[in-house]
């Protein structure tokens, strides 16, 4: 046990909580119309409540519990049985096992919250609740086991995902696209942007995401050591490169750079460096950040408009696309000189690791598509995912929650 490591991971756990609430909540909340801002805050807050409970009751055991044939954790640790203050040497040798558990809880919370971006402004609260619980249990928990759990089959073949590029971002981003396609467009979408109602909220949220992400990425070292510091630096560097690059692309493409562009680029950079942050050096992090800005810009500003699907707040365009690039980039730029526990990538002559990272993507995408499709169909049959037309027009705040964010008079 190491008190320094314990203090850092405790702090990181609180930082990752901050990412969901208020970070992501305000990032997304500012992007929707004023009649739906409370629905976003509500969904984020309720995910925090529901998944916190799911995790201690059975989610943690499914994801990290004793392995069952490489595909899922057994329920031996349900209700936190055997999850005490002694370290679990398989996961983190120098901090309490219970600390590792609660740190991971924050990842399980933010992942379904990211998907909100695809279905914003048009789903029933009840359907959202059931979908979130089922999705976390049947998509996130198994995938976390495959990639991170002791005995998980993708971990066993050497897949690298330092802080959740695949487990958090590709899984949520791909599922987001599936939902956007199955739900259909918001009323009046018509291939034209629905204007954000409060960009200062969005910028505030993006800034809180950047701040909290130090816990997400540097905390994933699970120790207060050089590896954590490297992850901190690569995270900051890639994010800076992505935010600046996005603004430059806009400047060139639209004639003016925008704060929404910088905020979006920043989040894309954070996403892309997530799987790589503990394995790459800061100079290569610059490339990862610049390239993610380029491909995510293509995804949200060009491809989305051409194909016409309504990924309302670009959960797929930023998290799905950026997470996929980050996972592949890990296979290119990872080097043992940075992290002896990692591997060398394509740039250092190791094609094998690059292929493993490719496989990681090729496995995760169909898994997320199929499972999300099934869960959507179940929830749609039982409750109905989408609100009635009139509720969508009046707004979710009034129709799903009986409250309004802003008054017009007084």
């Amino acid at each position, binding site marked *: 046990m190491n008190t320094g490591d314990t203090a850092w991971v405790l702090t990181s756990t609180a930082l990752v909580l901050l990412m969901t609430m208020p970070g992501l909540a305000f990032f997304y909340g500012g992007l929707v119309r004023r009649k739906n801002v409370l629905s976003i805050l509500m969904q984020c807050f309720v995910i925090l409540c529901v998944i916190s409970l799911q995790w201690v009751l059975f989610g943690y055991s499914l994801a990290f519990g004793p392995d069952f044939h490489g595909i899922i954790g057994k329920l031996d640790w349900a209700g936190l049985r055997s999850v005490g203050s002694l370290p679990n040497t398989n996961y983190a040798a120098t901090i309490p096992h219970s600390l590792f558990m609660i740190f991971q809880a924050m990842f399980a919370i933010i992942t379904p919250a990211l998907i909100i971006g695809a279905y914003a402004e048009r789903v029933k609260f009840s359907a959202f609740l059931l979908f979130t619980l089922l999705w976390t249990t049947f998509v996130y928990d198994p995938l976390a086991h495959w990639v991170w759990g002791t005995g998980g089959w993708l971990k066993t073949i050497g897949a690298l995902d330092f802080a959740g590029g695949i487990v958090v971002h590709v899984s949520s981003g791909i599922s987001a696209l599936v939902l956007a396609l199955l739900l259909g467009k918001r009323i009046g979408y018509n291939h034209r942007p629905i204007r954000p109602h409060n960009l200062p909220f969005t910028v505030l949220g993006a800034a809180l995401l950047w701040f909290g992400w130090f816990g997400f990425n540097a905390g994933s070292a699970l120790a207060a050591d050089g590896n954590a510091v490297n992850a901190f630096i690569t995270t900051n560097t890639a994010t800076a490169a992505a935010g600046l690059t996005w603004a430059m692309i806009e400047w060139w493409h639209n004639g003016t750079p925008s704060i929404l562009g910088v905020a979006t680029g920043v989040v894309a950079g954070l996403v892309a460096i997530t799987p790589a942050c503990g394995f790459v050096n800061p100079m290569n992090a610059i490339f990862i950040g610049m390239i993610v800005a380029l491909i995510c810009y293509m995804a949200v500003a060009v491809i989305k408009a051409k194909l016409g699907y309504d990924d309302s707040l670009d959960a797929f365009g930023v998290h799905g696309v950026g997470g996929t690039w980050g996972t592949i980039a890990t296979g290119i730029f990872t080097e043992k000189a940075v992290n002896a526990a990692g591997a060398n990538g394509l740039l250092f002559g190791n094609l094998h690791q690059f292929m493993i990272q490719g496989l990681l993507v090729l496995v995760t995408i169909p898994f997320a598509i199929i499972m999300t499709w099934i869960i959507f169909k179940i929830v749609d049959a039982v409750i109905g995912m989408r609100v009635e037309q009139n509720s969508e027009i009046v707004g979710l705040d009034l129709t799903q929650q*009986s409250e309004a964010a802003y008054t017009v008079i007084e």
Partner: protein
Amino acid sequence: MKLIIAIIQTHKLESVKRELEAVDVNLMTVTNVLGQGRQKGATEIYRGAKEAGGLLNKVRLDIAVNENFVEPAIKAIIKGAHTGKVGDGKIFIIDLLECVRISSAERGSVAIG
């Protein structure tokens, strides 16, 4: 000269604007307003305190036009805002006594368009 005041549903603003532009009515003032008509507002509840059927958000358009644009403008607003249900809104038309363009001090019909 007439002043057309239209109260419409907020989500119909874009389509009404498009229809008005199609008949060459391009100038308007738009405001957020609250209103109540035959359509009932949603109930709001704050920590148990209820307000049933509160006022609804609507959009108000103020459009000053010369006589020959009155009918086309009315038709365009109806076309853009119509759903056939209560809550679609109202159009009021009143005589306009004078119109002054501030930049040139022009008055009357020439100052409107």
